[in-house]
């Protein structure tokens, strides 16, 4: 076979051109060695996206291999488009979280919208119907001129896409911190459900099998989104990268979901993958590589939005709402009929070949001919230098220490946008479509979704703890995992699986690589201790602007299962007269707390974490829920114990009060009131159950004690420090975020 040709008018391929594509000189020489010749311009483009950090995981792969990914419930671990866990009664939960950070900073509405669209496709390409979304959002401080614009755009984009595609957004988190001023984070999670044994694969096979292109036509949008936008840090020119952001069409995505799931039921699909980052190139080469086969693409067949796209553009376009399917030979018409019914393109654009080559033809000429492995498994893997920074980590917001009266600090914390109600955000999301949302956004430590035709329910939660990770990236990552697991356990569900989105700065800097390495080590250790395998994930590097990195932010989503939805536990107090208890593994500290960010603190170290005790606390919560011994359970998170008790009083069906004599309990110090990082749960139980529940926690080595009781009078009395009207507190808590967003300061 003759070599592929360079086309008239194409730029000359040389080292400067390769560098402009984000490839290093070594990588360019490696490409020439693999091909035995200089690549064509089209091939250079293909290598540049497939060897980009975003697609190849070249800096992270060495570490990700160390994560635990097996358990008796894992149906699919890392390696496919998403992980899958058996959740019982014939259902498999397929889930993953992914970042869309840089696009969302450059163009917030479309960036966030297409982030949602992309993660949905990763789920339904597995043959699972997407049933729930969550988002972890990090914005800069309110002092930054871009923050309000970005919040409005991102929330609008998530809602605009998610609402229209009919997948409920059921939980999430929002944080504001100056370290994200120049680089926000938008991490989108999706969970889908499939019947056991009906998952689809992205492993191509069978020489002669046709390759179908389905969905939207290809345009010029998003070219080099993966390489130049996602795999480089930001600078003053980043605004000019707006054209690399894709534009979402949730209506087409909805049709694509229905058509793909219907097509999947025919059994005529051999393999299917979304054309996400690096579009047609990545989907075709990754499916071929997994099956150790080749693929031959005829680019003239690809549906185009405009004429005169070059092969380079067709292959690198990141136009949204497109999928690539390997069909059983002879059954392509059957599949095409389904897509036509849904008014979608479905065109044969190539075929599987036995020889493991990735080939593309255009107007009768070969324009690319590359060994498949070179684009996938044989992409570069780096062992980059990693060492801690010499000085105290920069960028942790920590005010100078000042004396603050506890009652004032408490009210200020309730109005802190990182603590206050996020209702302004989630009210813009459809959280109930599909009719499974037992507990949606708002009160509740995790969302609870019932499984239809089953008594079971799932609980899902996404968490992060970047300030703790900045102080200690290892302990911070552990704290994040155990917090997410505890949130899930507070509902009564047992955590069964994890997905993660690891957001860090530039991995070419040793101190960032060290943060990452420590983060993955913490994630792995925590996941092993809790018995929750990491079944999918995503890495986002280069979250920096002009050399300033974000706080290290591993975002962790945990999925849990409860055997009986009727046994779910709410986060808020329900019955006046019930006892209020706390269970915890550690005394709290002010290090990395919201209190420290606002008023300063002298703690500079996180408390050590005993993973066995963390696992025991999770186990005790699940056991207490299953035994029906607790009426509510709420994790103590941002703001500490006082805030957690106040939140538990905000029962949406009618507020209640709480009283506790903190002086008698020795809980009046600032760190006891507002400290974090202690793995503490505030829960309530009928007085007759107190002895039994205390014994249940104690038998697992968890310190558990009664601190007060729930009252009918809506007053929060944490004596002798706090004595406030609960309704007034709730109003502050509810009105703080809309107030900050509307203000023109």
């Amino acid at each position, binding site marked *: 076979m003759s070599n592929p040709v360079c086309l008239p008018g194409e730029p000359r391929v040389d080292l400067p051109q390769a560098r402009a594509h984000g490839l290093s000189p070594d990588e360019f020489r490696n490409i020439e060695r693999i091909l035995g010749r200089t690549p064509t311009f089209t091939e250079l483009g293909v290598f540049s996206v497939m060897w980009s950090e975003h697609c190849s995981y070249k800096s992270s792969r060495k570490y990700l291999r160390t994560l635990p990914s097996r358990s008796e419930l894992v149906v699919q671990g890392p390696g496919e488009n998403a992980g899958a866990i058996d959740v019982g009664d014939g259902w498999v939960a397929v889930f993953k979280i992914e970042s869309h950070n840089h696009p969302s900073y450059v163009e917030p509405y479309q960036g966030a919208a297409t982030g949602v669209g992309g993660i949905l496709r990763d789920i339904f390409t597995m043959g699972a119907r997407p049933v729930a979304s969550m988002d972890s959002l990090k914005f800069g401080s309110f002092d930054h001129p871009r923050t309000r614009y970005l919040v409005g755009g991102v929330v609008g984009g998530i809602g605009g896409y998610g609402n*229209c595609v009919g997948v409920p957004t059921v939980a999430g988190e929002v944080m504001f911190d100056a370290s994200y001023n120049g680089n926000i984070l938008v991490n989108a999670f999706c969970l889908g459900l499939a019947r056991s044994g009906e998952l689809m694969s992205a492993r191509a096979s069978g020489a002669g099998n046709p390759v179908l292109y389905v969905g939207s036509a290809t345009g010029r949008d998003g070219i080099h989104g993966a390489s130049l936008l996602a795999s480089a840090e930001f600078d003053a020119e980043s605004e000019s990268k707006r054209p690399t952001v894709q534009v979402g069409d949730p209506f087409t995505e*909805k*049709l694509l979901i229905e058509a793909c799931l219907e097509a999947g039921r025919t059994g005529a699909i051999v393999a299917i993958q979304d054309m996400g980052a690096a579009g047609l190139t990545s989907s075709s080469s990754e499916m071929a590589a997994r099956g150790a086969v080749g693929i031959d693409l005829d680019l003239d067949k690809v549906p185009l939005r405009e004429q005169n796209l070059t092969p380079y553009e067709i292959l690198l376009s990141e136009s949204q709402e497109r999928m690539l399917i390997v069909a059983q030979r002879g059954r392509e018409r059957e599949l095409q009929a389904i897509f036509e019914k849904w008014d979608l393109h479905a065109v044969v654009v190539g075929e599987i070949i036995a020889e493991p080559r990735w080939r593309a033809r255009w107007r009768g000429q070969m324009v690319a001919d590359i060994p498949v492995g070179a684009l996938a498994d044989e992409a570069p893997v780096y062992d980059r230098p990693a060492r801690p920074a010499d000085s105290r980590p920069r960028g942790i917001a920590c005010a100078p220490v000042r004396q603050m009266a506890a009652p004032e600090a408490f009210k200020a914390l309730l109005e802190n946008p990182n603590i206050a109600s996020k209702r302004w955000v*989630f009210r813009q999301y459809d959280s*109930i*479509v599909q*009719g499974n949302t037992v507990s949606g956004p708002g009160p509740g430590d995790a969302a609870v979704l019932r499984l239809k035709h089953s008594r079971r329910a799932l609980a899902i939660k996404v968490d992060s703890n970047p300030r703790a990770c900045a102080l200690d990236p290892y302990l911070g990552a552990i704290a994040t995992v155990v917090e997410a697991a505890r949130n899930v356990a507070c509902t009564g569900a047992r955590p069964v699986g994890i997905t993660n989105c690891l957001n860090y700065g530039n991995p070419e800097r040793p101190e960032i690589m060290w943060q990452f390495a420590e983060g993955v080590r913490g994630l792995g250790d925590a996941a092993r201790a809790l018995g929750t395998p990491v079944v999918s994930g995503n890495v986002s590097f280069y979250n920096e602007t002009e050399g300033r990195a974000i706080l290290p932010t591993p975002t962790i989503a945990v999925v849990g299962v409860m055997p009986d939805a009727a046994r779910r536990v709410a986060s808020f107090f329900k019955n006046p007269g019930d006892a209020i208890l706390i269970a915890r593994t550690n005394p709290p500290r002010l290090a990395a707390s919201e209190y420290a960010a606002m008023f300063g603190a002298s703690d500079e170290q996180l408390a050590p974490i005993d993973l066995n005790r963390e696992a025991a606390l999770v186990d005790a919560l699940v056991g207490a829920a299953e035994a029906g011994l607790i009426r509510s359970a709420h994790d103590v998170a941002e703001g500490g114990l006082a805030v957690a008790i106040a939140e538990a009083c905000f029962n949406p069906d009618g507020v209640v009060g709480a009283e506790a004599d903190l002086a008698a309990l020795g809980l009046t110090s600032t760190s006891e009131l507002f400290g974090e990082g202690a793995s503490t749960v505030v829960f309530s139980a009928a007085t007759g159950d107190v002895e039994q529940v205390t014994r249940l926690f104690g038998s697992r080595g968890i310190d558990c004690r009664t601190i007060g009781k729930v009252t009918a009078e809506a007053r929060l009395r944490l004596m002798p420090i706090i004595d406030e009207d609960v309704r007034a507190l709730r109003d502050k808590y509810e009105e703080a975020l809309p107030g900050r967003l509307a203000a023109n300061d």
Partner: protein
Amino acid sequence: MKWGVVRFPGSLDDNDSLWALNEVMGQEAAILWHKDTSLQGARCVLLPGGFSYGDYLRCGAIARFSPIMESVAKFAADGGLVIGTCNGFQVLCEAHLLPGVLTRNRTLSFICDRVHVRVENARTPFTRAMRQGEVLTLPIKHGEGRYVAPESELRQMEERGQILLRYVDAEGRETDDANPNGAMHAIAGVANDRFNVFGLMPHPEHAVEAMLGGEDGLKIFRSIVESAG
């Protein structure tokens, strides 16, 4: 009783409507594909919520031209019962089977929440299982639910009792805060002047199970079954 639930491209609450009718209420509901014309013997046709055709033009503006809508219009003209929730309400207005139009919420944002609506006329096929003045708790989720019609027309509709549901607070009082989208006359649901076509922004199909936050939606479906079953 036989129901037909129309599926437009972009319909979202079609499966939830089927679930409410078939699994929760034991009815016989089937999907009516938008490209078909047969109503398959349905005694009541339900147009579900969603974003038909993406709603990139005006909401419901394209769906009204679907082949199934000709049959629905004929069915309504013959006195058949038709109910449209959310996007289905928008389609019914665009198809001129109901008066008025639905415009962007006054907040200019999508709103997903639980609201209270008061039954303003309990003598219709859609409300007969309820008491006059009864307050229901139902979810809403829409970006364009602000009901608008000429004041003269609204006056006539009020006189004829065509306003079936109005946004109120938990105690049944009309307040500005209780009107989530700024609808004129706080209108949440209206009927045509023959009282066989009903459109509402709230989602009764999402209020049929206590575990999911309430069962008030059942009262609307039960009214229809009593009327046509």
